[in-house]
């Protein structure tokens, strides 16, 4: 009797201990998620706040800050500049980065080790170093600081991102595909466009989307290479220097919405990637 009851005792203590552990896990994870998302929630919520000052409690709902954005010419110009820069930089970095990844994967040449180190450097290198070293170069050759200089800077800084993503996919691609294509009489370029490229397509698109997002958000390189024209983050940055305004929250909210759309698109792309292979 006594043994049985002490057994149930122990069991019920174990059960309650397990429940306590479960709840403390859930509590901890909720705290972390709160830490991650509360600030974004604050950003979005205060873009609809009636008052100009960002204080608690909130004071009524308004769309005023969004309307102000729509009539802010500087901001709209900065947005167009950012789109221009991001589109060109992405195209450029893909045109250089895809052949670079293929080179690293397939071709051996003297100095390959140095080439790989150099091209992957910007992933770990603070952006500011890319920014100032290119500033020095452009000054030395007399190339004016401009949006075009920013494009070249972004393309260089983002090369590492494209190369790592595409290279990883190429490594998983069986060499036999290429050999089969060559055996069937396809030329190198035909093989590339008909065999290799379709197989790495999603990696290229994914890398391109990532490069676009990063370029659209880039500050350290842009800071040193832009002339009179502002990109969107540079414009937001200069607005922040003058103080906090709900208009920044409104821009931020729009960027969050666009980001969520991009995330969903990339998740779909990933799914497509893993689907047929498995």
């Amino acid at each position, binding site marked *: 009797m006594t043994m049985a009851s002490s057994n149930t005792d122990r069991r019920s203590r174990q059960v309650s201990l397990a429940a306590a552990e479960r709840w403390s896990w859930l509590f901890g994870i909720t705290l*972390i998620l709160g830490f991650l998302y509360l600030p974004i929630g604050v950003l979005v919520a205060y873009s609809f706040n009636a008052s100009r000052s*960002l204080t608690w409690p909130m004071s009524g709902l308004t769309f005023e800050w969004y309307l102000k954005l729509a009539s802010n010419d500087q901001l709209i110009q900065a947005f167009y500049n950012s789109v221009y820069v991001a589109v060109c930089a992405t195209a450029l970095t893909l045109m250089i980065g895809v052949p670079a990844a293929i080179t690293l994967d397939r071709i051996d040449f003297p100095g390959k080790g140095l080439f790989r180190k150099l091209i992957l450097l910007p992933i770990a290198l603070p952006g*500011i170093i890319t920014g100032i070293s290119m500033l020095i170069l452009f000054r030395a050759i007399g190339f004016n600081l401009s949006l075009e200089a920013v494009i*070249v800077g972004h393309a260089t800084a983002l090369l590492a991102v494209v190369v790592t993503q595409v290279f990883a996919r190429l490594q998983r691609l069986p060499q036999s595909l290429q050999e089969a294509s060559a055996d069937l009489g396809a030329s190198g370029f035909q093989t590339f466009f008909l065999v290799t490229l379709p197989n790495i397509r999603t990696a290229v698109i994914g890398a391109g989307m990532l490069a676009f997002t990063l370029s659209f958000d880039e500050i*350290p390189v842009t800071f040193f290479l832009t002339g009179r024209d502002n990109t969107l983050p540079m414009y*937001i940055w200069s607005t922040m220097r003058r103080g906090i305004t709900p208009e920044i929250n409104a821009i931020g909210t729009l960027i969050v919405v666009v980001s969520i759309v991009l995330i969903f698109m990339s998740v779909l792309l990933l799914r497509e990637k893993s689907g047929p292979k498995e």
Partner: protein
Amino acid sequence: MSVPLSLRLKRAVVLSPPLLWTLVFMFIPYTILFVYSFWIQKYPTFEPAFQFGNYVQLATDPQYLRVILRTIKIAFFVSLGAALIAYPYAYFLAFKVKRPGVRLALYMAVVAPLWVSYLLRAYTWKTILGTTGILNSFLMSIGLLSEPSSVFLYNQTAMIVTLIYVFIPFMVMPIYAVLEKIPKSLKEASSDLGVGRLQTFFLVTLPLSIPGIVAGFTMTFCLTFGDFIAPFLVGGPDGLMIANVIASQFGASLNWPLGSALALVMLVIVLTIISISDRFERFGQGKFA
């Protein structure tokens, strides 16, 4: 000889654009940066020279040493804080969540903010922590504070919190990647042998996940080390980091040679940390693979 000419030509076509690009836009600029660090500033411009004056100035003028040490300190605390938050989260994902759908959703929940502008994620902390900010007015409205406090913003703690927030995905990703690969059988074997769960964690799981912690620590450390936006937004007068000083040498102070020397110091520190962690990871892989 064994490679036919036409193939070599084709290879050259693939090879030359990236090769030329890295040469012109990476190798040459880094070289010029290196050369500049030996030049002399003669206000308002600078002259070619070969002398170590800039490096001597960095080593002897205490303000530069202080900035370098402060940057290392902040980068260390950011990495440590991020690891302390990221590890339990990654552990929960890898071992406690049973449904793959939930796991993917929780993983994406951490990674997704990377796609949201870095600048805005840092800015929102400025609006939360400021004297007239949301935290202050919230604490006042519930009666914890009688007047706004300035302790939350414009100091190193604010910078560390903001940077942990911004860079935490880089910590979760590699830690989760290693935890996920740990075979469940190892933990089962450990418990079959009568080892307690806490001991299993410290003797089996934690040692096996060290390569992931090292990778995350390195990434977070290097990213923080080169940051100049958080100090500007939420840092105080004692919050300048190396990148801010470099930026001002290339801006208002117009001392490119000194700025170049400082950039090279930064480069050497970052590359040293990366190569140490590289060796560490390779060591770990050799041991556990």
